[in-house]
């Protein structure tokens, strides 16, 4: 454990993070006001609807990200448990999967966006479908009216694929690290009392590793969200007003990513604070 800090240090860091968060939040409000003044919030940002503000984008992003990310995170966590707890370190399957996971996590998220655009969309022939106009809705004065939600299914699957590709390796890696943080002596002292593998995992490993696993899941999702800002490139051909819609969506994604990463860092700290273990004292 290299991240051990004393309580005053911890408080200082949390305070600094809070201040940074407030500053960024305030900046976001200014940007939002600017966008509203210039009418950018009224422009079309979603391929699914002619008339929209930021809400359809928000809804469509949530609709895309939440179920997929949760599924992908769960799958990644399950994968990590299998790799770490059931496969021996010398097994070639584990070595192969681990090398691939490392490779995938090291790829900058930018490249995933490029991959999404260049490979999937050109081969899937999605561009043709995106162009299909959807029925025009009445404009509400506020610009924030909920428009009937429509989703281009082919594109949904392509986006989903990219998200899964981005989320799973990070989830696997962070979960594996969390599982490794439960030291061998703890496991062994449960084993010598006659516990079987399930009992050790349920009673020792999961309670100790859970906060880290949760933080890792948040990190994976925030990475996907931050990278998803690139996916707006896909929507461009459908924008009548061109790339002016980009800042809007981009800020949304970045804000989401920031929030999630802050939550994850808080989760990690709470783990250190709640369990000043024997390891911490004697190492």
């Amino acid at each position, binding site marked *: 454990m290299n991240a051990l800090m004393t309580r005053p240090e911890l408080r200082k860091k949390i305070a600094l993070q809070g201040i940074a968060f407030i500053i960024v939040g305030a900046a976001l409000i200014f940007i939002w006001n600017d966008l509203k003044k210039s009418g950018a919030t009224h422009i079309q940002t979603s391929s699914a609807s002619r008339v929209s503000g930021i809400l359809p984008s928000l809804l469509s992003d949530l609709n895309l990200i939440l179920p997929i990310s949760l599924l992908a995170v769960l799958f990644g966590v399950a994968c990590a448990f299998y790799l770490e707890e059931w496969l021996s370190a010398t097994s070639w399957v584990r070595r192969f999967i681990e090398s691939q996971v490392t490779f995938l996590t090291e790829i900058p998220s930018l490249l995933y966006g490029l991959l999404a655009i260049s490979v999937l969309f050109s081969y899937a022939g999605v561009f043709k479908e995106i162009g299909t106009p959807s029925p025009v809705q009445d404009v509400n004065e506020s610009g924030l009216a909920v428009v009937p939600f429509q989703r281009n299914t082919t594109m949904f699957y392509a986006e989903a694929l990219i998200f899964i590709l981005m989320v799973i390796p990070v989830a696997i890696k962070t979960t594996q690290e969390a599982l490794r943080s439960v030291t061998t002596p703890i496991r062994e002292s449960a084993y010598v*009392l006659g516990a079987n593998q399930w009992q050790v995992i349920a009673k020792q490993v999961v*309670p100790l590793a859970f906060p880290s696993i949760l933080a890792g899941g948040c990190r994976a999702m925030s990475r996907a969200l931050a990278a998803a800002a690139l996916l707006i490139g896909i929507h461009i051909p459908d924008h009548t007003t061109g790339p002016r819609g980009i800042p809007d969506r981009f800020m949304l994604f970045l804000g989401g990513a920031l929030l999630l990463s802050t939550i994850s860092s808080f989760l990690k700290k709470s783990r250190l604070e709640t369990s000043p273990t024997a390891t911490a004292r*004697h190492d």
Partner: protein
Amino acid sequence: MQTEKKEPILSIHNLNVWYGDNQILNSLSFEVQPRQVTALIGPANCGKSTLVRCFNRLNDFTPNFRFNGEILFKGRDMYAKKTEVTAIRKKIGMVFRKPEPFQCSIYENVAYGARISGIRQSSQLDTIVQKSLQRSGLWNEVEPILHGNPNQLSIGQQQRLCIARALAVEPEILIFDEPCGELDPIETVKIETLVRDLITDCTLIFVTNKRRQAARVSDVAGFLYCSELIEFGTTEKIFTNPQDTRTEQYVTGILG
């Protein structure tokens, strides 16, 4: 010392152990008699821990672990295919060098072994916890904080908590793998007295690299050096009249 019992509780025949290509143990053969303290002494990296970890099959988790030979627990092959590993581990407990209490209350720590054996009644658990803590001499110290965090205990108390935890499953053999490695002299004395007391309940195997400690604690001693068992016999004989020159050098402090 009870030597009239002929049936050994643990017998090792021609045991060879490898980690990958490194041979850790080289054809060991000896027998552990019940109700005795058997000490295993020797310098670091001579295979003492590896040897005792074979006795409760903890080495199963080590990658690249290979062995041949035979370990009989009460006459039955411990590594036979149909042997239930968890049952073996309940019979053969272990206390490690560094105490590792679980992250739950002191009570739950001691009750853990009983719980996983399927005991649910709280009255029964209370009795087991009290008995084990009294046995390890910790009851008076922890009674008021029984449901508190074990991390508030001193490291010596934590070690005795680990002994209580191991005693709660009523093992037939209890292995101590350098239990005093991290303790101060006063706590060490407490553990040593405890070890002498425990032979009324179970057989003890005591691994240490402190010669005098082995002389104080054990009835029978074995000297391991460079992955071989050099000499095995009563403690008195090993320390006063060793047959091998290397044993003599070790116990007198010339070697190691």
